[in-house]
């Protein structure tokens, strides 16, 4: 499905990364896995360091910390926030929404709208779409979008497929109406028939957590995980990305009557370096126009990786001038979405560390 917006813009991005860092090669010593294969994974996939929360830290903790920093620095005023949107698959609770918890802890005004969206690696594109739609309302002038995950808490420490690559992060994006309207084109697609490829089987109403779902099971290849843990069919997801993402971006460019060359940077979700290099090769995009360094520096934080990639690679350029970005998110659902987003002199584009 295609979307088009005119008078909206992103005005600032702040990412919040936990200070706690883990090293891939250290962690791999806990697995029954030859060291030369670990080194190979590091080289090809780009796994190196990742940031994860310490015990008990939730998405709202990271988000409140970050938004308060913006208040302290005078980059955002509490009374300006007309809508607070949270996109996460690791919420604080089933009830209430994490957005309500953040609103309460920040003592924001009551005359506003808070909403949670359950979406994973395509969550930044989905969150921006939501923010733009909210801004169609005259009463909503400024939207704060929170994309965040603490999924390291949902991975099995004995599952080599996922444990060494998941990172935690929150991204805070401010979206407003634009007095100098430019077109923003987006496209989003879904295939729920493949939902089992990326899933936490237990913990919802279909299969509530129990002693049984916490039991580690042999998943083959020396990997063990419980039904409470995040499961990913890595090869199926790799195939999904290589098959679905290039036509998504190509159709979006055609719809917007734009060329690949007119895009300064392709900011994609950051599952691993290998997948992004293969994606760039397939689309004949130079590697330097598609950053792939997030997983090796911070880990894969699902819907937060695109803003994390923006701050890590393009902060100065995004604050100084204009950038034509093409965003692409893809993952659980399965869902995949892309957006042609012009960025112009962001008021802030930075990272803070959560202590």
């Amino acid at each position: 499905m295609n979307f088009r917006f005119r008078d909206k813009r992103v005005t600032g991005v702040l990412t919040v990364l936990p200070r706690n860092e883990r090293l891939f090669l250290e962690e791999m010593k806990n697995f029954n896995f030859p060291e030369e294969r670990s080194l190979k994974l590091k080289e090809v996939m780009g796994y190196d360091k990742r940031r994860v929360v310490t015990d008990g830290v939730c998405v709202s903790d990271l988000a409140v910390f970050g938004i308060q920093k913006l208040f302290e620095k005078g980059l955002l005023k509490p009374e300006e926030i007309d809508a607070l949107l949270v996109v996460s698959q690791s919420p604080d609770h089933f009830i209430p929404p994490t957005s309500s918890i953040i609103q309460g802890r920040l003592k924001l005004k009551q005359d506003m709208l808070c909403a949670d969206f359950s979406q994973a690696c395509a969550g930044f594109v989905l969150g921006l779409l939501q923010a733009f739609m909210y801004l169609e309302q005259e009463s909503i002038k400024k939207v704060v979008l929170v994309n965040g995950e603490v999924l390291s808490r949902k991975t099995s420490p004995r599952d080599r497929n996922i444990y060494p690559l998941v990172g935690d992060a929150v991204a805070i994006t401010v979206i407003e109406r634009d007095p100098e309207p430019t077109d923003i084109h987006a496209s989003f697609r879904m295939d729920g028939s493949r939902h089992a490829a990326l899933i936490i089987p237990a913990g919802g109403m279909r299969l509530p957590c129990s002693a049984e779902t916490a039991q580690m099971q042999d998943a083959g290849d020396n990997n063990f995980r419980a039904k409470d843990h995040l499961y990913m069919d890595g090869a199926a997801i790799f195939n999904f990305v290589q098959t679905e993402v290039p036509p998504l971006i190509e159709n979006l460019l055609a719809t917007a009557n734009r060329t690949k060359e007119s895009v300064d940077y392709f900011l994609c979700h950051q599952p691993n370096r290998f997948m992004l290099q293969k994606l760039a090769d397939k689309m004949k995009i130079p590697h330097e126009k598609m950053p792939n360094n997030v997983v090796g520096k911070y880990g894969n934080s699902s819907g937060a990786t695109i803003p994390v990639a923006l701050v890590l690679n393009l902060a100065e350029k995004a604050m100084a001038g204009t950038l034509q970005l093409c965003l692409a998110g893809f993952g659980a659902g399965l869902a995949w979405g892309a957006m042609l987003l012009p960025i112009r002199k962001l008021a802030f584009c930075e990272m803070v560390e959560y202590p």
Partner: protein
Amino acid sequence: MNEFLQKLAETLEVPNLKADDKLKSFPQWDSLAVLSIIAMVDANYSVNLQAADLGSIDSPEELWTLVQSKKSA
């Protein structure tokens, strides 16, 4: 076939391969090798293999047969 053997050997980082080698007995055979082969076949032959397709494959020759059958399909 020779060209395919060479590309497959490069992908698996082994000096050379024979058509009837047992791929899964190589120490290099793991989930990363599977992804690398899928990517190599996609890039060079425009054939989209599934990881499950590789499950029933033993030798380079069988893999080449599969790639050709998918290409003509």
